């Protein structure tokens, strides 16, 4: 997989989580600002009613949300409690249930009726003291109070307008009956005897807890948000661990590549591509190493070859001199006979050997050339003269301007010309023609050799410049390799080679006048 894809995938996870968190937190902010407002209004109501309260706390048990309010109520505040309920219920339009607790016990519970009002809720007879119910939007409280062990108070308080026609509410405690009247303010206008409180029953004052249960979208929403927060945390942790493992794999592979251990495979396409490229470089490196060592050995070999070549020169010189001497001592009639012809064989073969040795020495030459001003036309004359004598059936046509001077190693240039002419002579099946021309150029001298020989096959055009490659049946194939080395490497010259099989060969040498 591509690194970019991995990074995109990895970053998508925390981004999703962050977006979800932001989204839901924003929702919760809106929600909590609503809640703050409601709470403020609620507290104001409590204050107005002079109800003192200890605590106001919210317990969230998704999907249920319960708001607990601890209240200190006195009996004479029952009406206020009901007012409180009304106001409280109006504050929380989404309230589903309201419950009253005392001493950790659930005393009463109201739930919203279909029409929107709260109504009578289930009471646990053992533990409940009161039942608050609403009729047509008006609150009623029904209660039974275990005032002490000896008596049980049962009764109903109508804190809102009575049921039409009712005038009083009777409490039926275990021992005494207490009547609790409706406060005048709450009595319906038509109730003549409103406000008939006979006695204030010493209802257990003290700590009450009002529990408000909400069970709707906010609760679900809260749970949803929590779920998402947990999810986000998991995602971020997962992302982190994935990122760590990603980074480790990544750096491990990079380390491997950096230390040359390549081709081990792995999951990063870019690194694989890099490895493929690098393997090419490693190939080149090892090839270069081989080449360098082979060049070094070639250098050592070249040195030995040069030594051997030099050692051959003296015996050859002696044989040459001997042949010359014998030849010079023979009377003309003997010279023309078999003895003379055999002496010619010796002479020619010695010449061949000399050529080979000079080529070998040139190819293996370690010393730089010795540049001096030399005359190309004079060297050409010398060389042609040498071959004209040997190849009598070949027509040499020389068209050379006089005094074509260049700075060069004369002996090497002589060797180049000799090699080219020798090749041309050997390529011709007599009779044939070799045209040699030399012309001055701007900063060079151009020498052209054209023969009517057999030419070089197209597929051999490249190889003939390599040593040991020859298209002829004899010779070691050093000739053109030597020409190339001397002209191109040692004299910064150019060789233009044209040949057509069966038609002939044309070689043009561009030899610079100066050597820098």
């Amino acid at each position, binding site marked *: 997989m591509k690194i970019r894809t991995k990074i995109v995938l990895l970053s998508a996870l925390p981004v999703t989580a962050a977006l979800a968190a932001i989204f839901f937190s924003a929702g919760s902010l809106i929600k909590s600002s609503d809640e703050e407002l409601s709470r403020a209004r609620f507290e104001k109501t409590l204050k107005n009613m002079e109800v003192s309260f200890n605590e106001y706390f919210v317990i969230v048990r998704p999907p249920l949300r319960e708001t607990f309010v601890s209240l200190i109520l006195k009996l004479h505040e029952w009406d206020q409690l009901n007012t409180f309920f009304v106001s409280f219920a109006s504050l929380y339009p989404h309230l589903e249930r309201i419950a009253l607790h005392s001493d950790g016990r659930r005393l009463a519970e109201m739930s919203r009726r279909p029409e929107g009002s709260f109504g009578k809720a289930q009471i646990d007879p053992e533990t409940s003291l009161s039942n608050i119910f609403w009729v047509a939007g008006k609150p009623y409280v029904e209660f039974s109070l275990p005032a002490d062990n000896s008596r049980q108070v049962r009764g109903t308080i109508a804190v809102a307008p009575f049921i039409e026609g009712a005038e009083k509410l009777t409490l039926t405690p275990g021992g005494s009956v207490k009547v609790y009247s409706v406060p005048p303010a709450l009595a319906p206008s038509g109730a003549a005897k409103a406000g008939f409180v006979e006695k204030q029953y010493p209802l257990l004052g003290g700590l009450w807890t009002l529990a408000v249960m909400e069970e709707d979208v906010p609760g679900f929403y809260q749970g949803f948000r929590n779920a998402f927060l947990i999810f986000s945390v998991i995602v971020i942790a997962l992302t982190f661990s994935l990122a760590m493992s990603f980074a480790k794999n990544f750096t491990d592979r990079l380390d491997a590549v950096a230390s040359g251990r390549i081709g081990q495979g792995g999951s990063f396409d870019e690194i694989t591509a890099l490895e493929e490229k690098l393997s090419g470089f490693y190939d080149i490196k090892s090839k270069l190493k081989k080449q360098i060592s082979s060049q070094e050995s070639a250098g050592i070999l070249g040195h030995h070859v040069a030594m051997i070549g*030099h050692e051959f020169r*003296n015996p050859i*010189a002696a044989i040459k001199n001997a042949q*010359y*001497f014998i030849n010079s001592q023979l009377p003309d009639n003997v010279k023309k006979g078999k003895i003379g012809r055999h002496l010619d064989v010796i002479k020619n073969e010695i010449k061949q050997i*000399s050529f080979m040795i000079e080529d070998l020495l040139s190819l293996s030459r370690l010393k730089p050339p*010795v540049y*001096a001003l030399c005359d190309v036309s004079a060297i050409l004359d010398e060389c042609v003269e040498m071959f004209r004598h040997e190849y009598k059936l070949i027509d040499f046509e020389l068209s050379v301007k006089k005094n074509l001077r260049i700075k060069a190693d004369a002996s090497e240039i002589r060797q180049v010309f000799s090699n080219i002419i020798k090749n041309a002579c050997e390529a011709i099946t007599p009779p044939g023609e070799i045209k040699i021309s030399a012309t001055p150029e701007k900063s060079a001298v151009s020498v052209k050799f054209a023969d009517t020989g057999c030419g070089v096959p197209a597929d051999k055009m490249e190889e003939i410049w390599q040593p040991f490659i020859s298209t002829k049946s004899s010779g070691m194939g050093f000739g053109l390799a030597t020409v190339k080395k001397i002209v191109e490497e040692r004299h910064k010259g150019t060789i233009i080679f044209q040949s057509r099989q069966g038609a002939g060969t044309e070689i043009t040498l561009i030899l610079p006048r100066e050597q820098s």
Partner: protein
Amino acid sequence: MKKRILVVDDDFSVRETLADILRSRDYEVVEASSGAEAVVNAGAGKYDCVIIDLRLPDTTGLEVIEKISCYVPKNKVIAITGYASSDMLAKTLEEAEFFLLLKPVDTEQMLAVVKKIIEQ
């Protein structure tokens, strides 16, 4: 009177064959196989030409040429070399104090140079 040539070369075959060729051309030839011998010979007689291999077992040909220059002027010396260092060769070629032939030496060419020197 025959012209005298001193041939200095440590290789017996080369020296002898060259000497015989020169003798066949009617020169009087004295042979020397080392630098020391060459100096002794040069001081002992008069020479019209000296042919010397620059590589000798005991000294260099150049030193011999310097040492015998009081008997034989440098322009009568033919030096033969296959080993000349490029510096020396360049200097020699430019100053042209003596004739320098590079190996392999063409016999005809050498005879031509000898003839030229002796006729000077």
